């Protein structure tokens, strides 16, 4: 049975994708984020500008396309998110 993701869960998914797929250190494109984030392009665009605005993602503007990289604040947020997820799961709950 499919489970609905909360907004925070979607943010965590996008941030973890930006962290895990940034192997070369040149950032991750929107297509890769869309594939792993599993949300529409319109929603992703809005979310990305919000995440860049709040300092969780860094936008690397190229000649044609923008790429995204997780910031230190984003890494800190992910660590906190996983800690609280673990805390909730210990009590048998989903975050």
């Amino acid at each position, binding site marked *: 049975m499919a489970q609905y993701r*909360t907004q925070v869960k979607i943010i965590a998914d996008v941030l973890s994708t930006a962290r895990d797929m940034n192997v070369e250190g040149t950032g991750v494109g929107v297509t890769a984020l869309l594939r792993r984030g599993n949300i529409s392009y319109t929603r992703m665009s809005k979310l990305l500008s919000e995440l860049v605005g709040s300092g969780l993602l860094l936008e690397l503007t190229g000649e044609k396309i923008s790429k995204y990289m997780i910031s230190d604040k984003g890494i800190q947020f992910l660590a906190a998110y996983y800690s609280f997820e673990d805390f909730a799961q210990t009590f*048998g709950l989903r975050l």
Partner: protein
Amino acid sequence: MPTAPDMALIDAMLQFIGVFVSFSVAYVALKGVRQTESMSLMRLGLAFAFLGFGFLVESLVGLGQLFPRLSITATDVVVGGLLLETTGYFFLAFSHAVDVVLSKRMGAALLILPVMSLSGPDLANILSILSFYFVMYGVVETIYSYSRTRKPDTLFIAMGLSLLGVGTFFQWLSLLYQYVAVLSLLQIILQVMGLTILFTPVLRFAVGGVKVNGPV
């Protein structure tokens, strides 16, 4: 054999441990709400906040027995404390019940509620047995959750909840047989043991030292 004032003091001290553990779990859960806006953590936090206030009222009642001048041993206050505790246990069970409803699976344990709640003649009895029901429901759901995640910590928490549940059962017995003083002591020892187990995720959380400046 400990005297009545000794028992009251031990009881009050153990209740204060309950206050500390409950408020600690509530603090971490509500901090999590601020970070993640999770409704599950909100219900968990509320559950332990109510439990903490319930234990606080009961510990004050215990102290009232030591200092009769304080005269806070009134039945209404005892019932008030029990009501707070039962509300806490309700939120604890409710956290799981919402998960159950969300996954479109209804626990058969819910059907036991009407039968169990009618077994006590007065409000304190009913509240105690309701607490027992809510905690045991939480135990069943936590074990079910363990079957999904296979996280040993979840099983450990289920054990803590079980001790808490058996404690509430003894609480009910101690209300029925008030002349058996050991029942009350047994109740609070079991509850504190259960709460101490529930405190372990808080400890791990504190050791992990999660830091994020403000909500997203």
